[in-house]
């Protein structure tokens, strides 16, 4: 039996790669990390691999060893550019791959995020998404300065937990606003009717009048409804609270199963979260993250590469499962995840400039041989993820 929607394969791009010493590899060009050419190259390789999407990491704080606090390390990549702008810069240079930048919705205005992603959808002609990120870091709050933060308290401190719970509630509201703004212009709002001297049909442009616990936003957007109508919303999640955010607000959730048992447990938890929030419509696409280090044609195996890189500085530690081995080893893991019911896999290349070419030249052909991924004629990101396309704005009155 065929699956109800395609199995999706994507890549997560972050600096030189997900190994802290990735930048020291011979193939790496760390001095170029902040140039357009570097990102165009990476995404072109991902497109050559026929991947469905590339996500681009971002944060309002510098990269750090620990999850919530900054550091002063000098032996790892520090510094990054705004991911929405990287995606926009890359868009005209690519033509098929979905582009999903990370945006921190805790500190950014939903109005700004909404029109930025709508615009990414225009410049990429229907390939835009956004991975919404919640900020719980004290340093990020201090960068923006508007918001009280409980400060450097322990993660299980009640004040911190209340802060985080609220931040996730607020993020769900932010996504609701972002989505309503995308719908605030109906598709045919622009009429250019010279007879009545009307460029717009004002009845087809809607205030969203959002009033929530944390803020209110009036709308409509200044940007007309984007080509996909609703660009794809994704979130990375590891626990019940973020699963609920994803179930309430996202189309796609990236999760981090450690093994087969954990993988089944996560799927159950996500489905439970969908029930708890009474999600309607399309089920969440649950996509598993894997860090990959693939054997090179030169004969160095994935495990050897990993060991060598680990010895250079800080060893790789990851929330996501690390798979080091041949393309066929990685394909086996992907196969198992597909069989377990995941809608796709997002690969985090250990070394961007080594593992992306391996994905394109070895892994993707292997997955095609196994029938796990198929050539697609779909040109929008929604289409590639098997999400409905061409539906009207929520504000449109159905034609009788």
């Amino acid at each position, binding site marked *: 039996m065929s699956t109800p929607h395609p199995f999706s394969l994507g890549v997560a791009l972050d600096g030189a790669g997900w190994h802290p*010493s990735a930048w*020291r590899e011979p193939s790496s060009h*760390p*001095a170029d990390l*902040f*140039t*357009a050419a570097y990102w165009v190259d990476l995404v072109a390789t991902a497109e050559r691999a026929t991947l469905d999407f590339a996500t681009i990491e971002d*944060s*309002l*704080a*510098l990269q750090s060893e620990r999850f919530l606090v*900054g550091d*002063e*390390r*000098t*032996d*790892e990549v*520090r*510094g*990054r*550019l*705004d991911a*929405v*702008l*990287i995606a*926009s810069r890359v*868009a*005209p*240079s690519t033509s098929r791959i979905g582009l999903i930048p990370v945006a921190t919705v805790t*500190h*950014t*205005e939903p*109005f*700004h995020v909404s*029109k*930025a992603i*709508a*615009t990414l959808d*225009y*410049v990429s002609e229907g390939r835009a998404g956004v991975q919404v990120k919640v900020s719980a870091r004290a340093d990020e709050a201090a*960068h*923006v*300065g*508007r918001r009280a933060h409980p400060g450097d308290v322990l993660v299980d401190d009640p004040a911190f937990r209340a802060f985080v719970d609220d931040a996730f509630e607020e993020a769900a509201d932010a996504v609701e606003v972002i989505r309503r703004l995308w719908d605030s*212009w109906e598709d045919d709002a622009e009429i250019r009717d010279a007879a009545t*001297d*009307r*460029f*717009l*049909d*004002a009845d087809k*442009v809607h205030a969203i009048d959002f009033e929530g616990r*944390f*803020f*209110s*936003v009036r709308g*409509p957007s*200044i*940007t*007309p409804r984007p080509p996909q109508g609703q660009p794809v919303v994704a979130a990375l999640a590891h626990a019940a609270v973020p699963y609920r955010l994803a179930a309430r607000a996202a189309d796609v959730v990236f999760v981090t199963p450690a093994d087969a048992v954990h993988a089944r447990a996560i799927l159950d938890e996500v489905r439970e979260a969908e029930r708890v929030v009474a999600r309607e419509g399309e089920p969440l696409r649950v996509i598993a993250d894997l860090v990959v280090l693939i054997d090179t044609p030169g004969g160095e195996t994935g495990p050897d590469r990993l060991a060598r890189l680990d010895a250079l500085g800080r060893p790789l530690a990851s929330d996501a499962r690390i798979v080091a081995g041949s393309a066929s080893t990685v394909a086996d893991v992907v196969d198992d995840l597909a069989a377990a019911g995941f809608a796709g896999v997002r690969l985090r290349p250990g070394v961007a400039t080594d593992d992306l070419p391996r994905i394109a030249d070895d892994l993707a052909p292997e997955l095609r041989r196994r029938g796990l991924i198929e050539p697609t004629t779909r040109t929008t990101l929604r289409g590639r993820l098997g999400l409905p396309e061409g539906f009207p704005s929520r504000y449109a009155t159905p034609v009788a």
Partner: protein
Amino acid sequence: MTTRKQIILAAYVGGVNEHTAWEHPDAGSQIDFSTFRHVAQTAERGRFDYFFLAEGLALRARDGRIFDHDIAGRPDTLPVLAAIAAVTEHLGLVGTLNATFNEPYELARQIASLDHLSGGRAGWNVVTSFDAYTGANFRRGGFLPHAERYVRAEETVATVRELWDSWAADAIAADKDSGVFLRDGRAGEFSHHGSQFDIEGRFTVPRSPQGRPVIVQAGVSPQGRDFAASTADVIFSPYSKLAEGKAFSADIAERAVKFGRDPEHVKILPSAGFVLGDTREEAEEKARHILEQQLSDRTIQVTFEQVWNRDLSGYDLDGPVPDIDPDPEAPTFIQGRAFIFQDRFQTVRTWRELAEQRGLTLRGLAHEVARGPGYVGTPEQVADQLDTFVQEGGADGVVLGSHVVPSGLDEFVDRVVPLLQERGSLRTEYSGSTLRDNLGLPLPDAATHLASTH
């Protein structure tokens, strides 16, 4: 031969206004990327200095109802500019971003990111629109009193510059052998505690190619002028006639000297349109037709309602100028427009006198005070008018918009640009790679300072 002043040219896509004729048979999409790509590539072909986008953060409304007769709907500024960076090589990319509805950390990282992604072509037009109507679109809500908008704007720009300066030019060693990526483990550290912002930490974006992207300012009140003269590299001005342009330039020069700056480093560009014909008569006929299209009955009414701040729908456009006074106390009747009438009563008084002197109806007055399409004539005449305006000190160049999007600029580039180049008033090739190079602006002090001391 004496060297001629180089005309600075910026290309502007009329996004949301009544100057763009959407009824024109050649009028294309106002939102598709192909439109922006076309205009930008045409501007680069014409060796323009930069591409420019305005900003409006709320759809315009009349008495609470969305306007339906002017062009509306625009993309977000920065993502479009980043995408244009992919399809151009030399053109500067200047975006209008509000200092009231954005925070310094996000502005600094977005603009510095654009500067990296474009190889040093980013600029920021700082505007200070402040109304509650726009504020309702933001979670922070609210707005600033008119008098405080420049207090916030000045501190925003100063803070953004502190962030841009927080990485030394050579902070990144990226030395694979020694394993040193950063020379300084505290690169990007900043701390700003002022009346508007109380922020500290570390900035995420390494020093960008221009160090400090170009600052453009628009706003003409005395505070706006001081802000521009003390801070801006370029001023987007509303003064396109020679006499007023010279007066404005002189005023800005005087203020710049007061702030210890070289007036040569503050470029002034008014906005301008153009209409070309094979003969002067043909061009004037075309211009008249365009003006009529632009000044539809509803546009005229709204233009006056903006100044009167009242419903004027009961007044006949072919009758006299309304004899009632403006109502500055009422809620804003025309919402979401950045408008620049300093004194409503004075404006109305001047207009009434003008109408009486010349026996004008309301419609006649609208045609009289409309800025119109700007430079009108044969290509030779337009080149001459523009060159004379710049050489005689009216301004340093113009921000050129066309009434037909996206193809309108083609005619200017094909027919007028070669004439300006023949006169030696416009480059035939780009000489550098950054926006500062295009504009002939020096690298900022802090950039040179950091580069030499670290």
